[in-house]
């Protein structure tokens, strides 16, 4: 496999994950919950699929985006439920 193409995919995955995680709002490990850890493992596996071209970049983007949105939505629900108690 062409190393330059692998490098391009690595850069794309890294920048994409960096922007997504920043947009998601959690920047420090000490803010992380066990569910955040599980999410980071899943995202790492998805990045691996992109690096070896096992999936199209569009599939990676949709997968990461949807997972993060579900995660953030659940976080929001949890914090609202805590404030109602």
């Amino acid at each position: 496999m062409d190393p330059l193409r692998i490098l391009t995919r690595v850069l794309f995955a890294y920048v994409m994950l960096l922007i997504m995680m920043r947009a998601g709002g959690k920047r420090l490990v000490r803010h992380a919950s066990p569910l955040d850890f599980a999410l980071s493992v899943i995202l790492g596996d998805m990045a691996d699929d992109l690096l070896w071209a096992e999936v199209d970049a569009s599939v990676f983007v949709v997968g990461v985006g949807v997972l993060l949105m579900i995660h953030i939505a659940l976080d929001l629900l949890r914090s609202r439920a805590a404030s109602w108690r």
Partner: protein
Amino acid sequence: MKALLLVAAVTAGALALVAVSVVAGRDTRTLVSPPEAVVEQFVRKLAAARYDVARAHLADDSPAIRERIQTTSDALRARAGAIIQVEGRPGVIDGDRATTTAVVTTERAGEITMEFRLIRRAGSWRITDF
């Protein structure tokens, strides 16, 4: 709520970037899975008898092709034994069409070369014949 909207916006922006690269830039190998990777995935799924998942790589998902996939992979396993390794080899890309090969290393018959023809649909490579 702001974070949710931000992630949605970043997802849409990244999808637009990929679309520009694939449609306008005619990218066939970098941000899309290249033909040899598609073929390798397809044969790995056949080797694991995951026919329903393998069908996702096909351009035409008719009952006839489903039958052909199952009989071909069953015959291959019966003749050559277990599939040990699969390697997609880069072939020729001519516009929206490509030909490529997969070298299948088997328990009894050694290396078997399978040839595939692919077509590009909505930016992704799909197998038309093998």
